[in-house]
Structure formats: C-alpha cells, structure tokens
C-alpha cells in the first residue's frame, strides 16, 4: 500500500475527482502554486490562485456551486474563515432552504488548524463547532491520510457544502493510503480499538492521543474503546451510543475549546439517550477558553495529551456506580 502524507492524500483525492468529473474545480490562496501538478494536468482554468480575499473566494465558490460547478476552495488557515462567514453560513448554508430547495451547493472548503507549528491564535483556532451549529453545512476532520483522501472524495461528490478541516499537526505525517479509488461515507465514525471498560471519542490529532492513552490503560488492565468520529456533521450518533451502551463510561476529547464544543453535544446526546447505561459521569477534555499561544509549551498545553486522557479514564473506571 502506498504511503502518503495527509497533505499529499488531499492532492491525490483532488486529482482523482478532477479526472472523474470535469465540473470539479479548485481555487484558493496559493493552490495553483503549491499544487503545481494539478495545474499541469488540469490547466490554469480549473486550478486557480486567487487574491488573499477569503470572502470573495468563498462567495465565488457558492455562486459556482449553485450553477453547475463543484468547487474546492483552499482558505489556508481556519481563523481566516472569519472573513468567509457570510458566504459560508448565510449563503451556502441557508440559500438552499430559503429558496425552497431550488439550489444545491456542492462545494468543499479546506482549512488548516490545530497545534504543531506555533503559528499563534490567528492561524490556529479549532472553529469546527461553529459550522456544526450552522444549518446546511457538513463538517469533516480526518485523522489519517487514508481517511482524508477517502472523505475528501466523498465531500467533493456530496451535494452540500462541506467544511473540511486539516489538522496542522497531522499534515506531514505519513500513513498508508489504499491505491484504489476508495471513498468513505460522510457521517460514519470508526472504532479504532475495541474495549469494554471506557469509550474514548475524539477526532483530529487527539485520536492518536486517545490511542496512546488506550495503550497505557491496557497496561493497567483497563480496556478502552477508541472512536474516531471523522465527520462532525453528520455525527455518527449510533456509533457513540453503541459504544457507551457497552462500556458505560465516556471521555470525549478534542483540541477545540471545551466550552460549547463538540464534546458538549456528545455529552448531551449520551445523557439524553444512554443515561441508564452510564456507570460514571461523562468527562470532556478540550482546550481552554483562551486564544492559542504561539509558544510551543503553551500551545501543547492547550491540547489534551495522552497522559491526561489516560488519567481521566482511569479515574472513571475506579469510580463505583451510585
């Protein structure tokens, strides 16, 4: 099986989908410069650099998507999405509904986020929950190159606007990627490790931290189940509920601010629908309500680490049910 980085997996997905469907186009901040191979194969009309103007990039994608193209736009860093909020939230997310279903918006927005490069809070801000909270949008955040490729292919084929977040810390990690043109449905989580005692739910780079924590826990005789959500909307509620139904204990882990984050939604879901299964309180581990510092130790401290996750899970397993 070929080995690719997540960054190259994105390029492979773009290449395959642009070959498959001539309505797929890609434009954004430096995409024609950095992904020269796409320009070489598909030409400068289908792969374009743009001004550094996120609003018009996203707005152009919205207009193009509504009238027959399938644009993929690269807005570089997630905090830059603030400049594109009207276009993504008010236009892409709402105009299908507001027009009574007359239009659909098959577009993908790529944005990088997360700790790893010490770029500071205006380049690193995990804003994915904002878009989960906005109707009409789908949200994906893969944790491996293979998933990134297969999910991006599905996102491009999807008739809805998809926010596709790339974790900076994972971008250049290599991983095995199937050579065939595999897709993965949006909205399906994956169970990376089976366990009976506690469920660790995560997405993005903290999936690896959960897997490391599960190793530590195994050494303590605790069998942790690790779930990678992969998509945040649609959310694979069944995968979460099935696992918690088995383990009775839940730790939700993400790098984004804990306050009103995805973890809060998952905790509420489990409290509402699996309360009787719970043997211990739900634990949420997430970033603080603070901008992310550039300084490396502070940046890393904002991310739930494996030791913290393992300790939280071990405490849950030690607690006796009431």
């Amino acid at each position, binding site marked *: 099986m070929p080995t690719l980085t997540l960054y190259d997996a994105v390029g492979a997905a773009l290449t395959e989908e642009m070959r498959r469907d001539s*309505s797929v*186009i890609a434009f954004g901040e430096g995409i024609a410069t950095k992904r020269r191979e796409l320009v070489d194969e598909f030409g400068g*009309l*289908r792969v*374009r650099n*743009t*001004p550094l*103007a996120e*609003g*018009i990039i*996203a*707005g*152009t*994608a*919205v*207009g*193009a*998507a*509504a*009238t*027959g*193209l399938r*644009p993929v736009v690269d807005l570089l860093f997630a905090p830059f999405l603030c400049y594109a909020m*009207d*276009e993504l939230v*008010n*236009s892409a997310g709402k*105009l*299908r*509904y*507001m*027009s*009574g*279903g*007359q*239009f*659909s*918006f*098959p577009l993908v927005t790529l944005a990088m986020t997360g700790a790893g490069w010490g770029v500071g809070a205006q380049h690193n801000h995990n804003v994915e929950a904002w878009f989960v909270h906005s*109707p*009409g949008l*789908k949200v994906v955040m893969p944790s491996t190159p293979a998933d990134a490729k297969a999910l991006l292919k599905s996102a491009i084929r*999807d*008739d*809805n606007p998809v926010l596709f977040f790339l974790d900076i810390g994972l971008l250049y990690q290599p991983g095995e990627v199937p050579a065939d043109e595999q897709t993965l449905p949006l909205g399906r989580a994956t169970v990376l490790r089976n366990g009976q005692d506690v469920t660790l739910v995560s997405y993005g780079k903290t999936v690896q931290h959960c897997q490391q924590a599960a190793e530590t826990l195994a050494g303590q005789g605790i069998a942790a189940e690790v779930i990678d959500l992969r998509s945040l909307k649609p959310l694979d509620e069944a995968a979460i509920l099935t696992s918690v139904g088995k383990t009775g204990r839940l730790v939700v882990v993400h790098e984004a601010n804990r306050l009103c984050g995805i973890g809060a939604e998952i905790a509420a879901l489990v409290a509402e629908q699996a309360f009787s299964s719970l043997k211990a309180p739900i634990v949420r581990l997430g970033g603080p309500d603070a901008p992310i510092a550039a300084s490396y130790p502070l940046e890393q401290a904002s991310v739930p680490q494996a030791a913290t996750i393992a300790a939280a899970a071990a405490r849950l397993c030690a607690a006796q049910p009431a």
Partner: protein
Amino acid sequence: MKPSHPASDPRQLLEQMLLIRAYEESIVSGSAAGKMPGTCTSVGQEAAAVGVVNALAADDLILTNHRSAGHLLARGADPGRLLAEVMGRRDGYCKGRSGSLHISAKELGVVLTSTIVGAELSMAPGVALSQTMLGRPGIVVCFFGDGAACEGSFHESLNLAALWNLPILYVCENNQWQAFVHRREAMSREHVADWAAAYSIPARTVEGNDVFAVLAAAQAAAAEVRDSRRPYLLETCTYRTRGHLEPDDQGYVDQAELAAWLARDPIAACRNRLLANGSLTPAQAAALADRVSTRIAVAQAFAEASPFPAAEELCRDVYA
C-alpha cells in the same frame, strides 16, 4: 414559467412599472393592515429595474437583493406567487421560506437572492465562472445598491471579475439611501461608477428615473459584456421614495430632497412622455391602470387562498 420576452412596445415598459408600483403598494397596505410582514420596497426605483431587465436575454442570469420586486416582476414573475411568498404560503416561489426579502426564481433565471447587503456581489463571480467554464452564452447581471458598494465584497468582486474576465453586468441602483443613512454620509465619492476605474472596469451613470435612458444604457452595457466577456458597471441614479423597511415614518428624510425626487417620479414621467408623443392615449392609459389593478387583485386572492406550509416542512430542503 419562463422569463418574459423583453418589452418591444414602450407601453409595456409603463405597464411593468405600474405593476411593480401596485404590487409593492399592496404589500405596504397589507402590512399596515397586519395581513403581511413589513418589507423593503423599491418604490421610486421602478424605471431602473424595468430598463435593465428589458435589456436582457432569456438565458442571462440575475442576482438580486432585498429590494427585488422590480427585477422579478420585470422578468415575468407571477405576482400571485410573489405575494404568496411574502405571506409565507406554500405556493410562493420559495415555498414560503424566503418571505419578501430573498426571493429567488430559478425558472426565471433569478438566482441566489440574498438580503445580506453585498452577498449578491460575492456570489456573482461564481455564477459567471459557471457560465464561462460550462460554455453558456448568458451573461450575469448583479443588482446591488450604493450601500452594498460600501461593503468589501463590492471591491473584492470587481477585482476578481476583472482579473478572471467574468461576464458580469454590475448594476448599482444608487437610491441615495443605505438603510437609514444617506449615501452622502457613507460614500467618499459621489458615484459608485467612479470606483470601477480602479479595477479597469468600464462604467457609466445613467438617469435612473428615465426608463428609456436606462433601457438604452443597459442594452449598450449588456452588449459590451456579451462581446467582451468582461465586466461592466452601470450605475442608475434614482431615489428610494419610501422608507427602508415598512412601516417607516421617514422622519429622517430631508423633505425638500424627497419632494424634488417625487416630482421626478419615473412612472409619471414615462406616462406623460408617451401621452405627449402620441404613443399612448388617455383611454389606453386608463386601461393599463385597470389591467394592473385587476392583476394585483387576482394575485392577492391567489396568495390568500394558498395554504401555509405544513409543519412537516420545517426541516425539509436543509440538505440536498
């Protein structure tokens, strides 16, 4: 329903303007009577809408904004379905989900209407990109106001359209008002057209209350976009003679300025000109007025008879 053919008879232009006026006045009175929500009218701006829309071909695409009644009706929209939309009824163009402020009608080529000031400008390059890349002949017409021209999206849109050679006819309806603020308080220049030169986009202004002048200018502008496949900006200078959002007492309006513009009412000007040059007799003028009021009465009856959407439709059409 397909886009209506451009008017070939000047009396049709007058009739379209009368229809727009009567339609919007019916919403104003319906709103005052508590039968409809308030709306943003384009009363006073009818010539600017009718002149431009009648310069377009059936395969051209229109993006518009919250003051869209003129564009929709001139394009051939059914006033009954429009009023049904305003009243939140199932037979509205958008199944009652839009209300008056964001009506799109894909079948008429009126795509992607947004009430977010400037959003139409942000989406127009994408629509034009589709036209270009998919080999469609139609050009894209983007209606916006002087308020939207003060948004960043105006400048970003013009820059990209010029850079990418996009066939967009930008039509700024400069109605002197940006919600409750006079254009003079908000714009560094007298005219929006002045800004187009910064992006190497040809532009001109036209007297927006003269439907014949607007039609001629728009025909020339549309022909230039069609031939060059590049953007052009036409600024129609007009005046919003009613308030921003009904009901509105217009207490903030300079009464002398309002009176001066009311004296230049586009409908009266057109009617008087046609009467004076013999294209229209007083009897024909009366017949036009009657036909329009009948159409509005029929439209109102249709809208009122249309059912509200069922509760099950609350979450339909959110996702494709």
